[in-house]
């Protein structure tokens, strides 16, 4: 079980962005973490994976445990070694390295044998990557880059995989594909914390979901409850008073609409 308990996070010693966040990812489960832009989802992932200090953030209260062992005192490489892998927001692949080098760096802390096994597994899960193993990763399409980012994260054989908006910017067909891959990775024994703005996609595969708003968890329920919840439908649809006048409003409208699309 990966557990976040009563977590407060502050950036730059002043901006309190997470307030009393509590959530759990049971071993082998898929858990969705939903919320609008700026709600604090990425910050939760940074806290779990030891990347807060890169952003001048710190945990001021609460903590994180992995199978009841504290995780929050570890640095980023420490959390990887402990069994937590992540796919960062925006994919963040090394565009100047080849596909295979990107995968290998994901297995940096693993031994030679597991790197070989990991490459094999990645190329089986993502045959497109096998075809392009020697190509510079910057030339991959958005969907392929997302697959590479997922493959890279799997190289350390994580027991828990954190995914930050993997469907962002992808065409519906690719979103479907990524969704199937997440289900398959989970089936092979990895617990998944799936951060999404695409609520319908996330809730369709998750067993449990959390909804965040301005740094707080405002809903915490089994996925089917959230799927049926009128508040969620209404809130994330939110079409009634919206008037698509400016370009910004159009984008806003689309984003909200995506929640149930």
């Amino acid at each position, binding site marked *: 079980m990966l557990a976040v308990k009563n977590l407060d996070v502050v950036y730059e010693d002043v901006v309190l962005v997470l307030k009393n966040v509590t959530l759990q990812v049971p071993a082998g489960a898929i858990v969705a973490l939903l919320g609008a832009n700026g709600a604090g989802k990425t910050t939760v992932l940074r806290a779990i994976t030891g990347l807060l200090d890169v952003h001048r953030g710190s945990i001021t209260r609460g903590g994180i445990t992995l199978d009841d062992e504290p995780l929050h005192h570890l640095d980023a490489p420490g959390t990887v070694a402990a069994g937590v892998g992540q796919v960062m927001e925006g994919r*963040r692949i090394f565009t100047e390295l080849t596909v295979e080098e990107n995968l290998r760096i994901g297995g940096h802390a693993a031994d030679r044998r597991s790197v070989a096994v990991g490459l094999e597994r990645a190329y089986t899960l993502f045959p497109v990557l096998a075809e392009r193993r020697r190509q510079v990763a910057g030339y991959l399409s958005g969907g392929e880059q997302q697959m590479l980012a997922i493959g890279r994260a799997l190289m350390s054989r994580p027991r828990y995989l954190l995914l930050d908006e993997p469907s962002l910017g992808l065409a519906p067909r690719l979103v479907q594909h990524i969704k199937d891959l997440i289900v398959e990775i989970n089936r092979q024994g990895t617990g998944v914390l799936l951060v999404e703005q695409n609520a319908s996609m996330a809730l369709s595969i998750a067993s449990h979901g959390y909804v965040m708003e301005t740094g707080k968890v405002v809903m915490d329920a089994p996925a089917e409850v959230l799927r049926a919840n009128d508040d969620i439908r209404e809130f994330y649809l939110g079409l009634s008073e919206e008037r698509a006048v400016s370009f910004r409003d159009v984008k806003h409208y689309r984003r909200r609409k995506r929640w149930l699309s």
Partner: protein
Amino acid sequence: MTELISSGLVRGMGIGSTYALLAVGFVIIYRATGVINFAQPALMILGAYATSVFATGVGMPFPVAVLAAMAVLAAVGMATERVALRPMVGRQPFAAAMVTVGVLTVLFVVAHRLIGTQVRTVGDPWGLERASLFGVSVAQVDLAKIVVSLVAIGAVGLFLARSRLGLAMRATSMDQEVALAQGVNVGRMFSLAWGISAALAALAGMLVGTSAGGFEAITALVALKALPVIIVGGLDSIKGAVYAGLLIGIAEALTRTYQPRYAEWLGANVDVVVPYVIMIVVLAFRPYGLFGTREVERV
């Protein structure tokens, strides 16, 4: 023709390959940490001193003495990074570069104490022997400089391109946060960059020390030639450092050979200015150097 090859090209490449060694050291630290390491001249002269102690003082066989000096300097480089530079992580690159100027001062004072005022030698591994290259007689010391430098740089290049740690270093230089998230201990990569770079500086120091006349503390200033070299080659390019090093070395040697004869009115020591002239010309046409990447930020 003979003179062109032996005093111009070969000698120039000899000097230039030493510049290239130093420049590659700059590039490796710059790429890993974003900092220009102005302490390189002090590391170089300490390397010459260490080689001198091991080879002529302790009496080790010359190659062993060189490797020992490189190892000692690698340790000095890593310690410097840990103590002086690590606390600067996340600060302005300019501030960190200024810290390296401080390190330069401290290490140079140490070097001055150790070396004293007299001229030292690292021994005389190559002597004044001449070798024949395609029928032209050239100084063996020049060939040795070229071979030793290029082999060392080639080895570093291979390490970066092929090894697990080399890949981690390259990844770190591209995106530190993502490297961290893959389990790379980024601090260790900084340390490694300083270690490699200081070892290369030590090797350059040894080569400079084998020149006729030996070396003294002030010989450290030779390493400043690596600055125009990295600007010409591009701050972030190892290939650039090698080509620019050779280019500037050859230009310098040609000037030294022919300028007194054909352009005497320019006066003495024109060859010293040549690297900077080349730098200014290159900057006018290619602001990022011959091989540099566009988005490199100047410090």
